[in-house]
């Protein structure tokens, strides 16, 4: 247990917040204050209007992550924070690749390339072509190495978005949060929730 607690690995931190100016900074400085690098950060509106969802990826020990999540949750405009290992989530990153159409048409079997890498063409012009893939880091990296010899012009990768495997009832809880003054079922003591699979808010 202790070892597991101190072993560093990637953690996916999910944060539900109000949509408020300055909140990104308030959350970011919780990491920077402790000199912890954010590997990936995505923030976008959730399925519930006015509630935003952050996906933050850091490489740290569970003990550090646990304390960080409590510090984040302590912020007034943060509704709820969870953390998960990569095994507990399904995650994707989106990548875009811009390459010269001439080179690609001439030297690469486009069809094979697309098929093997699960990529698709989003823009096809005379001068350049833009491919898109989604996947894990290794997968998007793989296509870079394939396209690099063929004059990759530009590359961009999105932050990670992750969906949690054990999140039954999540959406309805979120809606409840929006609708209700929190009642007994909404305020949860995390110490009691260890055994529960379903999220509680």
């Amino acid at each position, binding site marked *: 247990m202790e070892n597991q607690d101190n072993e560093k690995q990637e953690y996916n931190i999910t944060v539900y917040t109000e949509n408020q100016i*300055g909140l990104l900074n308030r959350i970011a400085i919780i990491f920077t204050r402790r000199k912890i690098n954010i590997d990936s950060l995505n923030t976008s509106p959730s399925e519930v209007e006015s509630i935003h969802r952050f996906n933050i990826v850091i490489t740290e020990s569970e003990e550090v992550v646990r304390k960080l999540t409590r510090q984040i949750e302590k912020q007034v405009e943060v509704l709820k924070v969870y953390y998960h290992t990569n095994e507990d989530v399904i995650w994707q990153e989106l990548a875009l690749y811009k390459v010269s159409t001439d080179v690609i048409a001439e030297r690469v079997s486009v069809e094979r390339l697309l098929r093997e890498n699960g990529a698709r063409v989003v823009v096809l012009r005379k001068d350049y072509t833009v491919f898109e893939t989604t996947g894990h880091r290794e997968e998007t990296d793989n296509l870079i190495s394939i396209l690099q010899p063929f004059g990759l012009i530009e590359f961009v990768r999105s932050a990670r978005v992750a969906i949690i495997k054990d999140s039954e009832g999540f959406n309805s809880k979120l809606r409840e949060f929006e609708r209700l003054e929190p009642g007994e079922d909404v305020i949860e003591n995390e110490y009691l929730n260890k055994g529960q699979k379903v999220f509680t808010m």
Partner: protein
Amino acid sequence: METQTITQEVSEKAAEPAKTPTTEVSGSVALLEALIVEGVDTIFGYPGGAIMPIYDALYDYNDKLNHILVRHEQGGIHAGQGYARTSGKVGVVFATSGPGATNLVTGLADAQIDSTPLVCITGQVFAHLLGTDAFQETDVINITTPVTKWNYQVTDATEIPEVLAKAFYIAKSGRPGPVLIDITKNAQIQKFDYAGYTKCDHIRSYRPKPIVRPQYIQEAAELINSAKKPFILWGQGVILGSAEQEFKAFVEKSGIPAAWTVLGAGAIPTDHPLNVGMLGMHGNYGPNVLTNECDVLIAIGMRFDDRVTGRLDKYAKQAKVVHLDIDPAEIDKNVKSTVPVWGDCKETLPMLSALVDKKEHTEWHAKFKEYTRQEVEQVIEKELNPTTVEMTMGEVIKQLNEITKGEAVIVTDVGQHQMVACRYSQFNNTRSNVTSGGLGTMGFALPAAIGAKFGAQNRTVVAIIGDGGFQMTCQELGTIMQSGIDVKIIILNNRFLGMVRQWQELFNARRYSFVDIESPDFVALAAAYRIPGKVIDNRKDLPSALNEMLNNKGSFLLEVMVTKENNVFPMVPQGCSVSEIRLK
């Protein structure tokens, strides 16, 4: 839910239920109305260009809001802190944009770490000038984000009532803390239809306190009842939660020895038989050593600061830990708890009291008494009844206790005098020890004492300050002069930055690097501010000088020359376990 409307005319209209009456007011007026509904009576502030509309409105509110003009914004915010600490209310501070706002930062950091409820209002340049490097423009929101519980920039007057309501609610609920509201000048001027002020009692993303789980109370009680050597550590949470009575009842029923953190001092009287003393680096001998001998540690409203725990991996490893706190981020942060009791101790303590057995723990108490005996013999006796020619800080505090009989509010600065004052002051009442605990802000005491007096107008307020710290904020003598504030000031002058000197003596082979500090003639300085004063260097003059100070109508400055190179003991050296505490 309280609603207050501005004029008589409007409130008459309010009798008609059909629609909410409105009246056109400026953002500045809406702000001041908000303060009145929130029960604010005193504001500490300093005007400037970007907050002028608020000060202009304040001109008409002179009879309702007492504004104290400080001499520096840092003084203003420390005064707000002192006010909050003695009154239990939210301290309110005004400052202008730019330098006015940045001068608040030390006080915000201090209030944040010591959980002091404040609402600070800063002026800001016109909204259209934001980000243009306008005159006295600074990014106050981002500068203050790490040192506030919440902050918000208002650029439209219509937001003011709601934002202020949130500010007060956030500042004082849950674990209290400082809130800063930055208001652009256009919003201060802007007129809008004002429909009254409604206090805030709920923010959907904010859970100031949880619903207490009886299961954990049960487990905690079982652990406590089975303990042979239980030990209570209490902190400021007991005071912030106004749970002094509940705490006393718990301690008295369980019969468990209880020790306090610096900020917890006074929650039960110093001479309460179950109060075994102070924790931490310069705390008492028994409480430190026996932390590593107890079997159940019950931490109540405290956060296991490193100055309390010493070396963490050798801290109470043998003990099971019950931790009562309102802030879940504190539970398991430094010390792993066996049973976490997350909640407001005003609720959790009575629940726990109901389940714990009535006990006396006589043998266990005898251990504390034995350590106290040793500490008295080796440390306290020398400090309180010295045989040296020069006076000690401790004997000044002892004399002060005898005269004030433990009824005074003691405000201290930071350093040796602070530790001596906390160790030896007699506190009969709660909210009597005002000091900068977490941040250790030198210069805190003089302005905090000003605020402390406004927060506890019927009590004697004594500021005890070192010669170094006094010189950091001594301009606030001007505030005392102008507003006629009755603050008694004792400067314990050892002609050194004593605490740093002590460390240099003990750990840096007496290499006294820049700790030798010269002081002005403090009595003459006070006299320049028309504050009477006296300096003494002989103990035979001490009682009469203290009496003269306390009997003087209004403020008085007493400078006491004390031993130059005295050390505060006991001491847990940095990096050592609490049980390695040194008596010399």
